[in-house]
């Protein structure tokens, strides 16, 4: 007789265990943004950005004198990203593959990406012998937001804080996001067709890559209109 020692088959009358569907249906992210500048008093510029339960606070310090040994002919830009404790980082995954990322590495990648963006935006050569520091705090995070979507919010928050700080910048940057199930792209635009930085995990590279950049550009243009409107309103209010 053939005995099923390894229990390959199991008892004959079993029923598979089925759990109720627990994940909620995927919704389009709420793109409405609440923005306020100048809330923090002791820094040179700040912004508060809220988007669908994600809260990001950015403060800009500088230009301040920099006393290093060597002479630097342009400002030294430092960017510091802080992800608050207990943020739900599970969704900061790459492309459906759930990496729960190492937090240090994540922060460091964000910092270096921001640095590469704003290094070419701020006119650093106007501030010799000084340093400029930007602190980004992600205070709260919507658990459904992906890494790149949050990155877009961070970029916009930093751009607005820079305007508030009155530092010399080449343009007001504004980033756009486009995402689908298979890929996500964030592009930071200094102006139309002027890319400051791109971060994309585009799997099947073809003509749709261009489309996704188009989508980013549209997204950024729309946001830019809003941000410009807000900044103008604020400026005229201050003037009057």
């Amino acid at each position: 007789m053939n005995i099923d020692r390894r229990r390959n088959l199991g008892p004959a009358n079993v029923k598979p265990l089925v759990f109720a569907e627990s994940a909620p249906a995927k919704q389009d992210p709420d793109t409405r943004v609440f923005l306020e500048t100048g809330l923090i008093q002791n820094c040179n510029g700040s912004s508060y950005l809220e988007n669908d339960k994600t809260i990001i606070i950015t403060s800009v310090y500088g230009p301040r004198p920099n006393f290093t040994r060597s002479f630097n002919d342009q400002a030294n830009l430092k960017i510091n990203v802080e992800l608050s404790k207990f943020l739900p980082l599970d969704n900061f995954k790459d492309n459906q593959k759930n990496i729960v990322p190492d937090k240090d590495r994540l922060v460091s990648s964000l910092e270096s990406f921001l640095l590469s963006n704003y290094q070419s935006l701020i006119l650093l050569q106007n501030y010799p012998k000084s340093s400029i520091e930007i602190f980004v705090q992600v205070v709260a995070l919507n658990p459904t937001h992906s890494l790149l979507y949050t990155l877009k919010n961070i970029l916009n928050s930093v751009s607005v804080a820079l305007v508030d700080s009155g530092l010399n910048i080449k343009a007001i940057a504004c980033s756009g996001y486009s995402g689908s199930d298979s890929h996500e792209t964030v592009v930071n635009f200094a102006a139309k067709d002027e890319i400051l930085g791109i971060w994309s995990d585009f799997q099947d590279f073809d003509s749709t890559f261009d489309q996704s950049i188009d989508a980013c550009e549209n997204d950024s243009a729309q946001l830019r209109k809003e941000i410009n409107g807000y900044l103008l309103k604020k400026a005229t209010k201050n003037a009057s």
Partner: protein
Amino acid sequence: MVLSTAEKSYIYESLSGENTLRTDSRKYNEFRPLKAACSFVPNCNGSSRVYTADGIECITSVKAKVVKTKDLANLIAVEVDIEGQRDNSALCLDLSALLQRSLVNNFDYEILRLTDKYYFQIYVDVLILSVPGDFKNSSYTLYSLLSLISMGSYLALKSCKLPLLTSTTNDREIEEEPSFADDWELATDLIPESSEFQPVLVFVVGLVGSNVIIDPSLDEEQVLENGVCIGYSQGNIVPPIQSVALSTVDGKPFDRKTLAKATGLVKEIGQPVTQALDAILSEEVDEYGSVF
């Protein structure tokens, strides 16, 4: 070398000009000469050494371990260590994160599978032996190491050998620990020759004016306006497509045409670079290596 303003402007003008004249008279799509060797560390499943003429050397090792897991994304661990830099320095963390992300996103997990429960865990350890002495007071960054590191990991993964599995795999549901042949002569390749899969290569492309250059040298980096790293695997562009800071001064935004040029460049040179690396792999290395 720290460049003077005049030198910078000279190099910038010639790079951004019509013909992309580079300081070492390379073409825009030409690499600096590289040397490489594989499988010279006896303790590792796969290893490689890639070094350039300017003394930067990258040693990569791949070690495999059998683990019981369901979480496939954790099967690849990457650690980059740079001589003279702390383990938690921004550069080390960044390069590790970038390489890990690019490998994890483009990996064929089938080749790591033993049974439904057991997988090979792969550790990729990268060691940069020496960095240029003037690194601290110059305006270039070392993100350009990324392309060297990715070539190192490509070679190490391709040369990685695993012991022959002797236990059965057909009853995959069974919780049976895999067992392996003792004879190392029977070892199989991690990536079998029949497999289409190639580990990802990451190229660093420098952007200057409306020109793109591959593999920027340290002198060139100081005048570059921007940079992107672009992944390549099996004839296609794969993630990451990400901008990196190659220089800390005089950055500028770039337009979409330049970005398209950069991806086009990577598509064009990906194949020859892969072929060159595969040629290195086919060279035999004797165990008592003449590697050094």
